[in-house]
């Protein structure tokens, strides 16, 4: 490499390192603050690695928000059940749209696609009134059911199913395989990469959802984590070490999920982009 090329490389790395630093500082600062004493929080120059680390801050969250662990459980329940339901409805519907012939198929598909373009805020208030009428306020059903089916997931899975050779289903039919068994034992295993991606994106958006849980829950025991975090400031005041500890609790599970599944998550996001 020529000297010029080497300098070019160095500059590239410097810029990228600088950018990465700007991206990381808020996360590092969140963690660092969560382990400081109330006194250290206000000391400048800032203390990046507090010794000893105040792990007690994490249990002190409970002094102000005793329901915080319950919110964690709520998130687990809502994200897991919601994702299972979303996958189930998507598999069944995508199968119908990709493999079955029926009256109204195309028009129904276009109606769903058109609905996908509408921003969710339009549906917010009518859906709230529906939840009131169903007497579902402050229940898991209210947090889960509106997201139990996703048009985008149906659409993505249908594309994937369409790419599976048609001959497979003829072969299965000859073997006397019924539609449902064919779907379950051949299509679903083949579509695993797509299903994993859909599931991951569903888990992430469910875990981080804010506006809907804010509206349909009342009692502290029904709050999801982002909601509990947003309302925590009202309860704990501005103790930044506690606010940051609570933030770490909300953020950490998704970061761990991302570290282990990033290939699938990134693949899913890039695929949605190439479609556009």
């Amino acid at each position, binding site marked *: 490499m020529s000297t010029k090329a080497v300098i070019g490389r160095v500059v590239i790395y410097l810029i*990228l390192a600088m*950018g*990465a630093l700007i*991206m*990381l*500082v*808020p996360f590092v*600062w*969140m963690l660092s*603050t969560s382990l400081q004493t109330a006194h250290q929080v*206000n000391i400048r120059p*800032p203390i990046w690695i507090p010794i000893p680390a105040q792990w007690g801050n994490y249990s002190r969250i409970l002094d102000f928000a005793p329901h915080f662990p319950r919110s964690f459980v709520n998130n687990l329940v809502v994200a897991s059940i919601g994702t299972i339901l979303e996958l189930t*409805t998507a598999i069944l519907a995508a199968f*119908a749209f990709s*493999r*079955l*012939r*029926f009256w*109204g198929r195309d028009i*129904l598909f276009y109606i*769903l696609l058109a*609905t996908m373009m*509408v*921003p*969710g*805020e*339009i*549906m*917010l*208030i*009518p*859906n709230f*009134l529906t939840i009131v009428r169903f007497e579902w306020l402050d229940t898991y059903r209210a947090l889960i*059911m*509106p997201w*139990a*089916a996703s048009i985008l997931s149906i659409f993505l899975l249908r594309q994937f199913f369409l790419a599976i050779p*048609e001959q497979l289903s003829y072969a299965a039919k000859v073997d006397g395989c019924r539609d449902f068994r064919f779907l379950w034992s051949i299509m679903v295993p083949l579509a695993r990469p797509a299903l994993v991606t859909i599931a991951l994106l569903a888990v992430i958006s469910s*875990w981080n959802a*804010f506006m809907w849980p804010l*509206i349909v829950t009342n009692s502290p025991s029904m709050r999801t984590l*982002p909601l509990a*975090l*947003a309302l925590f*400031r009202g309860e704990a005041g501005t103790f930044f070490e506690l606010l940051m500890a*609570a*933030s770490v609790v*909300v*953020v950490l599970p998704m*970061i761990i*999920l*991302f*570290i282990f599944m*990033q290939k699938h998550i*990134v693949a899913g996001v*890039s*695929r949605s*982009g*190439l479609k*556009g």
Partner: protein
Amino acid sequence: MDGTRPTLLGTLKAYIYLLPALLVLGTFSIYPLFRSLFMAFTTVHRRTLEVEEVGLHNFRFLMDDPRFALALRNTFTFVLGVVPVAILISLGIAVLLNQKIRGATFFRSIFFLPFVTSTIAIAMVWNWIFHERHGLLNYFLGFVGVDPRPWIDHPDHAMTALIIMSIWSRLGFNIIILLAGMQTIDKQLYLAAKVDGASAWHRFKTVTVPLLSPSIFFLTVMGVIGSFRVFGEIYALFPGGATAGPANSALTVVYYVFQRFWDDRNFGLATAAALVLFVIILCFTLLQFWVGKKLVHYK
């Protein structure tokens, strides 16, 4: 699919497969759409939930409401402040990441982190970074001789703070989309340009940008739609929640919808405001497609 016509039995079977999805989508996506079209022209009484038709009254009220005008202005400021800057920065980073450098995946992952992170938690930590007396930002700005400013507590700075945070949190998504777009560019084009003696900047301008234009276009549309809908960030970045930033200075359209709906319990008015937002988004998207047709280079 074979060429046979659908049968009654086949249709019945298909709808059994579709039933779970259609029940959910019908109840929570399609029905509310029609209901809000109707609700925007009504007033719903707070306690009895009785509905009264009021014609265009809600829309007339919106036109006269200075808060709605402010919300519209702030929303446009936000869109203009966030979308182009975020795309430009991401484009620069994506080009660098595409230079066959070591650790490209590692860098990409770091930029992508905010995408998987709760916006509420992000806004919480930025609230702390923006803190006037002890925040990191003012501390670092002090080194370059910038006086500390009340990022969060002063109406003049609230929108700037919101925009800085939002650009930061959107870079990762943009970079992923741009990198995916770059994978589809034929390497031979670069080679040909190099042989012709084109400089790096010239290659970027004449090969990368035109061939990347579908991705850039997609990011613009998605960015504009996403920015029009900003809400949670504001709720958590500015303490209180009752007002959107100091003296409502970061009020956006969705926040306005939320305030009329949640604080005032004025369902009809809130729905009308949401409908206006939808029409604006729709117009913008159509406009972008119209402009895009002329600028975007599809193979």
